[in-house]
């Protein structure tokens, strides 16, 4: 994804995979591109890969911004920019 919504690691599954919670949706991702990720950490996910591990304070700040963004969209969800 281009937008950096932090995902929280909820379970490690093997050496290189993890289950993350991304805005309430759980999905399995690869940890092959990052080191030392533990349950509870926040990561940025792009096409199934964790890209970066985030500082928890920055992750919370970013999540708050995205929550605010969601309230601005119709029905609290995404809206279309253009066709």
């Amino acid at each position: 994804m281009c937008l950096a919504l932090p995902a929280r690691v909820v379970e490690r599954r093997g050496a290189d995979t993890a289950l993350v919670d991304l805005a309430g949706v759980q999905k399995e991702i690869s940890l092959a591109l990052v080191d030392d990720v533990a349950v509870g950490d926040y990561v940025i996910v792009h096409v199934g890969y964790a890209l970066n591990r985030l500082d928890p304070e920055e992750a919370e700040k970013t999540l708050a911004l995205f929550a605010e963004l969601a309230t601005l969209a119709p029905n609290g969800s995404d809206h279309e920019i253009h066709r």
Partner: protein
Amino acid sequence: MNTGKLHVSAHWRAGCLARLETRLDRPQLAPLLEGQSAAQVGLCVPLFYSLCRHAQGLAAGAALAAAAGRPAPPPAHSVLWQETLHEHLWRLLLDWPAALDLAAAPDACAAWRKQRTAPTPALLSATAALFDTVLGVTPSGQVRPAGLAARCLAALGSAPALAPVGLDLPDPEAWLARQADASPMVAADPLAELDAIATPASPGVAYARQLANAHAAWQALAAGHPYPLRLAAWPHTRRGLAFTHTARGWLAHEVVLTPAARVSRYRIWAPTDRRFASAAGLARQLAALPALDAATLRRQLELAILALDPCLPWQIDWTED
């Protein structure tokens, strides 16, 4: 919340593609930024982005400073070149090989990524080794027959590009002067000509350009070149505009401030928005192909999407009569 997706709808009827449409869904940031203080916006814009956060932060900081009549903050040139190089290498090592049924190089990609926090000489050494041993590209840009780059080019029936493409930034003042209406985002893009040059005509051309642009970013990082940035300021209206470079093309931020230094208008022009505002870039690539069956054309559509390099996940909705 969903952070964005590209939908490509294609309808196959009577042996040909009868309809091809794109729809790009992603949240609009401007309403969140408008009304906030300039300082707050400068801090929060980079937090919204993942792949291009440093370029977004650079464009935001420069546009805000221009609108306030201040000099732009100095760019972190090395970090910005690294970000651009990372995006190119992700495509060259992971996405293109996978799309061409060739072995991708995730371990090499991971190893290079880990060097990004190392001192610059170590990063440059790792980058040179990656280009040499994995991609098979020399420091002068020559493609050797045994590397991953040569295999991808062969699979695409393409030759290496001679020079990077799409690195020029528009002139901000001329650009804004030509943009007569103030419609949001990309509805009126006055630089269609520049984008037409940068929009690849085929997946093979796109791959060759990506390789040339990755090589250029590597060399710029090694030489310590300044990262591209152009800006314009209209102090009497507290308006600032900044253009910078990303791996996918030029990026612009425009801001208008109130007398109390709050944002009254914010606009962002991003490469993915331009390239997928319509299906024209995809249709152009498919139209150049010979007559194909449905399955083969669908595969070509996948390559055409990758060639236009969207920065977010995509989905093809394929229907047939």
